[in-house]
């Protein structure tokens, strides 16, 4: 299991946003969390990535307990994420957005980075590697043609892609995508599905995604967790989930 949660719980005052969630995510593959608005999906991500400290339960990443560790430490351990509402560094270029996420791999200390004396400081060599890796990543994901564009000037779909590129630059083992297809039309969603599969294969990582687009979820995920009002009401392969009456009623119930 690359990721496991045990009775993961988050209470905000009187609201239990996530109630005793037990995830078991094996390595490799694409997994999904679905559920109506306010079901607690993003809150679960926030706990896994350290943005929120859970009020109960534990989180294990590669069998190490990472519960309530700092977000940067969790990213260093190998979990990267994207955000439901795209959060790029808006004033920075595409290239800068991605290379910033390389910083956690820097070994040179601050003095070595400032006094970049060739032969003494390893900094310049590291910087060259970062730049090369960033350009390779942009090339691979098809973003090179807008390398020096300010990120906020990109079309919406490409901003989503860039956010994924930035997360990949941290070299994660587990990638969490929060509604990557939000706001996309069916054709873009279809492209995104292929893109996510490609990313999974080329970077050999595990993907856990939150999504409302059912076709996308059914298409690419091998296992699905369904949440409603913080509770995990169903889990299983896409075919099982599709016919599950509890799932259908959760979605219908929230449709009013």
């Amino acid at each position, binding site marked *: 299991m690359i990721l496991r949660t045990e009775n993961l719980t988050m209470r905000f005052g009187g609201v239990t946003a996530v109630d005793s969630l037990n995830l078991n995510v094996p390595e490799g593959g694409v997994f999904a969390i679905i559920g109506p608005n306010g079901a607690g999906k993003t809150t679960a991500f926030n706990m896994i*990535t350290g*943005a929120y400290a859970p009020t109960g339960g534990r989180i294990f990443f590669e069998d190490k307990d990472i519960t309530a560790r*700092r*977000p*940067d*430490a969790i*990213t*260093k351990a190998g979990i*990267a*994420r994207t*955000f439901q509402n795209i*959060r*790029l*560094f*808006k*004033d*920075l270029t595409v290239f*800068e957005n991605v*290379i*910033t*996420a*390389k*910083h*956690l791999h*820097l070994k*040179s200390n*601050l003095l070595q*980075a*400032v*006094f*970049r004396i060739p032969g003494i400081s390893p*900094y310049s060599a*590291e*910087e060259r590697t*970062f730049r090369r890796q960033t350009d390779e990543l942009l090339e691979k994901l098809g973003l090179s043609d807008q390398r020096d564009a300010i990120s906020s000037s990109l079309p919406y779909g490409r901003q989503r892609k860039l956010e994924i590129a*930035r997360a990949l630059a*941290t070299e994660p083992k587990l990638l969490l995508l929060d509604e990557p297809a939000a706001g996309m039309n069916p054709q873009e969603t279809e492209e995104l599905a292929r893109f996510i599969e490609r990313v999974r294969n080329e970077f050999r990582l595990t993907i856990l995604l939150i999504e409302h687009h059912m076709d996308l979820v059914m298409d690419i995920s091998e296992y699905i967790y369904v949440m409603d009002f913080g509770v995990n009401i169903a889990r299983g392969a896409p075919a099982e989930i599709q016919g599950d009456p509890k799932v259908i009623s959760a979605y219908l119930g929230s449709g009013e």
Partner: protein
Amino acid sequence: MKNINGKTVLTLGVIAFTLILAFILNGALDSYVRRILNLCAIYAIISLSLNLVNGFTGMFSLGQAGFMAIGAYAVAIFTVPAELRASGFYLEPMMPLLANIELPLIAALLLGGLLAALVAFVIGFPVLRLRGDYLAIATLGFSEIIRILFTNMQSVTNGALGIKNVPQLSNMFLIYLAAVITIALLHLLLTSSYGRALKAIREDEIVAEAMGINLLKHKLAAFVISAFFAGVGGGLYGALLGTVDPKNFIFTLTYNFVLIIVLGGLGSISGTVIASFIITIGMEWLRFFDEPLKLFGIEILIFRPGLRMVVFSVLLMVIVLFFQKGIMGQREISFDMLRRIPLRFGKRREDR
């Protein structure tokens, strides 16, 4: 590669030109003008230090006057010739431990910078853990506390009497050299991976942290480095004045630097340098606001000490309201940019 070398040569050329100019002007200018130009360079150093925190890292510090005071007192305490100290410290003699230690100016400047950095670490470590803008309050409090402390440490600082006879520094070459070194080091820092991390924190803390950047470590580094340069700048300021007393470091001094970085552009080194000159020279020029003025034999009542500050506050508000980005925004003057200027004008015309 060739391009980089060309740029390096050009950069070194500009630096050499600045220093040679400073050297020549040092001999050519009268002491009043020289003093103002020296003040410009010192203000540039301190404003850059503030911009590192407020402009590049997106925090909000108001502690520069306090860090300057630490640097200025380090210079004042250790560079006054030992034999001249007793006459100044007549209320209470100087602490025997310090009374005989004399340091060369450079050593005293570095000591001041390091002490300021140490204090910044002590303040920053608890405060920067907290989410939210507690730094402004903490640094404002600190800069007042340090002033009151210095007013009361009679045997170290000579209290409210201040320390006179500080060997005066008026050498433009040395002061401009310090400014050039500050600019170079900050430029190297900000163009490094660490600089990118600081800018990421400014843009979005939550994302920066999710990208693996340790917020506390990086904010603290920026704050401590900032304090170091403010300390050195304060030391130069003390040496320029020749007299260091607590009244020099009232927290309103910090407003000058806030004004400079807002005018120059939060997040721009070149903008800060340009604004340092504009504000410092402007402040000198606006002195007449503080003096009584008679028009047609009638005394204009608002012309009295303090009006200059009012004018400056209004200026600050105008900038904030109408020119949020200041002169440079987050951009820098670079050789590439200078080369593009003719092109740009051409393009604008096409746009119309």
